[in-house]
């Protein structure tokens, strides 16, 4: 399990150029964000210009990984050993982060121009930069300290971004999120304290070697798990999520739903697979909660009247899919084949959802922006006037429903295979029910949009490219599904 996270020594020392690429990836978003705060971009092209080196650095790392396998950088500051590593999973998540981040950034100028954001708008840029940097750091981190730093950085940046819209509802939701996120990190820290106290080290590779099952590992796992579950909005600790998304700006929601909560989940999987390599019940508790999440989130989204709540609740349900996989990822009694399938399915689902959810938020944002209504009923007749936004929404929702040819489908296929091999019929049922519920709420929304009997109203024209950016993301989720072999192969590449 551990090798999958790239926690082993690399064969080659990284080239000097990769150092620069690493530096670019980690720091440039932050710097560019600060720059943008000073000179807020009004058009998309400066953003594109600024993000080009970041993406280029990401691709460079990808090629470097392709050439050399696992990359590992190490420094010693004072007495503390710091190290970063890049394996297939990190590359994938890094690229996902960058692309979604870039898409959100490109989307932002148009959005801000149209939505009259107020004076706080310029702060969005540094926060966004911080967020990207923190996320990039998280995918590369190899010790609990760095993870903690990245987690906190990300959390605070996320809270800040969510607050920017300045509406009272947003502030309330943000306040709740802030408090819960802080408490969640403290709980995580408590778990880390136990680990540090017992084993005296924080580097994951070392911990993975020396940790054996025992009460300390279990308590630490429980605390870390609970804290991260709160931050990752896992059912039943998800309730802060939808008000937050409902009131935030569209690009912020997209980033948050696509990436931020996934980061906590990533940490949860990472730490648990170190702390609980062969637990039986804990992953199952998560899985059972996941089943509930699928149903609950689906029902919430089904009955809601607000478009953004629908999208946010669907995140809860989609996280349920990921939770359901836990017993296959962790635990001692899983054969290698289903574990490998579940592993691939998990990350594919995660990435696919990230792309699709980001696209969906953007599409929803476009719809809301254009119609001036945030309720589902307000969408009546949009199929005539805003076909492209709806199409994007539709393509994104195909991924969420897990219908072919999307990443959601391919992931579901892999997961099904894994579950069938291990005979987890409940999980299979949950996934199937989830598909149907997803379809139910998605098409409830479409039903409104196809309603032709509604009175015609004025629509605000969208900035050029806003739809196209969303479309690109949604199609990326498709491509990820159809050509899943390559990214999944990348995940193997570092290990075997």
């Amino acid at each position, binding site marked *: 399990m551990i090798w999958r996270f790239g926690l082993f020594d690399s064969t080659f020392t990284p080239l000097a150029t990769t150092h620069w690429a690493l530096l670019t990836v980690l720091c440039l978003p932050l710097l560019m964000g600060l720059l943008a705060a000073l000179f807020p971009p009004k058009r998309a092209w400066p953003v594109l210009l600024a993000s080009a080196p970041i993406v280029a650095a990401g691709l460079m790392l990808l090629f470097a990984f392709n050439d050399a396998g696992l990359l590992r950088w190490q420094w010693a500051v*004072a*007495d*503390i050993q710091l190290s970063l590593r890049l394996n297939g999973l990190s590359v994938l998540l890094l690229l996902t982060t960058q692309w979604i981040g870039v898409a959100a950034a490109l989307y932002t100028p148009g959005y801000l121009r149209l939505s009259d954001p107020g004076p706080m708008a310029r702060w969005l840029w540094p926060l966004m930069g911080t967020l990207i940097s923190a996320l990039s750091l998280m995918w590369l981190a190899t010790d609990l*300290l760095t993870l*903690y*730093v990245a987690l*906190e950085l990300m959390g*605070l940046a996320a*809270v*800040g971004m969510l*607050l920017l819209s300045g509406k*009272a*509802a947003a*502030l*309330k*939701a*943000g*306040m*709740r999120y*802030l*408090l819960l996120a*802080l*408490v969640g*990190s*403290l709980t995580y*820290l*408590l778990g*880390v*304290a*136990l680990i*540090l*106290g*017992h084993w*005296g*080290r*924080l580097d994951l590779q070392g911990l993975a070697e020396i940790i054996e099952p*025992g*009460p*300390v590992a279990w*308590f*630490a796992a*429980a*605390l870390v798990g609970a804290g991260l579950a709160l931050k990752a909005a896992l059912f039943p600790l998800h309730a802060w999520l*939808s*008000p937050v998304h*409902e009131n935030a700006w569209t690009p912020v929601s997209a980033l948050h739903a696509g990436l931020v909560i996934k980061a906590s989940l990533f940490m949860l999987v990472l730490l648990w697979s170190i702390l609980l390599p062969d637990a039986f019940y804990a992953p199952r508790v998560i899985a059972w909660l996941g089943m509930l999440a699928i149903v609950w989130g689906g029902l919430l989204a089904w*009955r*809601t*009247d*607000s478009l953004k*709540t629908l999208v946010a609740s669907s995140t809860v349900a989609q996280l349920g899919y990921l939770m359901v996989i836990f017993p296959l990822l962790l635990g001692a009694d899983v054969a290698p084949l289903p574990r490998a399938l579940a592993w691939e399915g998990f990350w594919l689902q995660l990435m696919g959802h990230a792309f699709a959810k980001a696209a969906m938020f953007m599409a929803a944002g476009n719809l809301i922006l254009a119609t001036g209504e945030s309720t589902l009923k307000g969408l009546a007749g949009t199929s005539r006037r805003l076909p492209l936004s709806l199409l994007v929404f539709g393509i994104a929702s195909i991924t969420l429903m897990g219908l072919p040819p999307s990443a959601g489908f391919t992931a579901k296929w892999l997961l099904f295979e894994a579950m069938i091999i291990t005979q987890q019929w409940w999980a299979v049922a949950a996934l199937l029910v989830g598909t149907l519920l997803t379809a139910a709420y998605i098409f409830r929304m479409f039903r409104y949009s196809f309603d032709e009997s509604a009175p015609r109203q004025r629509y605000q024209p969208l900035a050029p490219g806003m739809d196209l950016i969303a479309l690109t993301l949604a199609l990326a989720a498709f491509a990820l599904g159809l050509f899943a072999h390559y990214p999944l192969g990348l995940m193997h590449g570092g290990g075997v």
Partner: protein
Amino acid sequence: MIASIDVVEVALALCLTGTALVCLFDRHLLRACRFFVAFAIAMALAWWQLGAIWLASAELLLGAVLTGLCCFYALGHVGSSGSSVLAHDHFSEPWTRIAMRVVLALVWFVMVAVAIGYVLTDMQHSPAEHPLLLAGVVIAASAMASFALHRHLLRRLLAFNLLGSGVFMLLAGVAGTTPTAQVLISVGLLVAALGSMLGVLLIRQLLHLQGVNALDHDSGPKESAT
């Protein structure tokens, strides 16, 4: 660790626990904030006692001064004209909620204590040898519970800060004041301070916008809609 009971540590531990509990459960918030400042100073002393000078100064600066100022600002005693809306917590919780939180606090207390017991095996035999650690457990558990119990935003913020301190204390207690632990704690302190500042700003802004001091029913209509 020395075998005999360190009087200074015990005193500090008692002082910390006492101030923390008052801070957590006093409905009069101005008083609670004062106690919080006192707690932070005691905390700094504790760090000093443990030999972490850097942490002590950080705690003094970030915890006592900055966070304290933040709290008073939230109450309207620093800077802008004060309003007394926040000064007193008027919420009365149903007894079931209180009972549940008490039970949870106990459970957490036991859990954390047991966990630490496993980490420091010698503590199982003589728990009184680590008074600060014990205080940390008590503070963490009760702060957690009161965070879950309270609805008043400032009180929750205070509870969070106390929880942070408790956790740092535990961390230092079980891991010693190694550089790694110090870095962890400093990051935590910084984040707590930043969070508090952000939280206080939010509280003020919310009060300004809507006159609310708790997060009740913010999106109630959304849920009840079918």
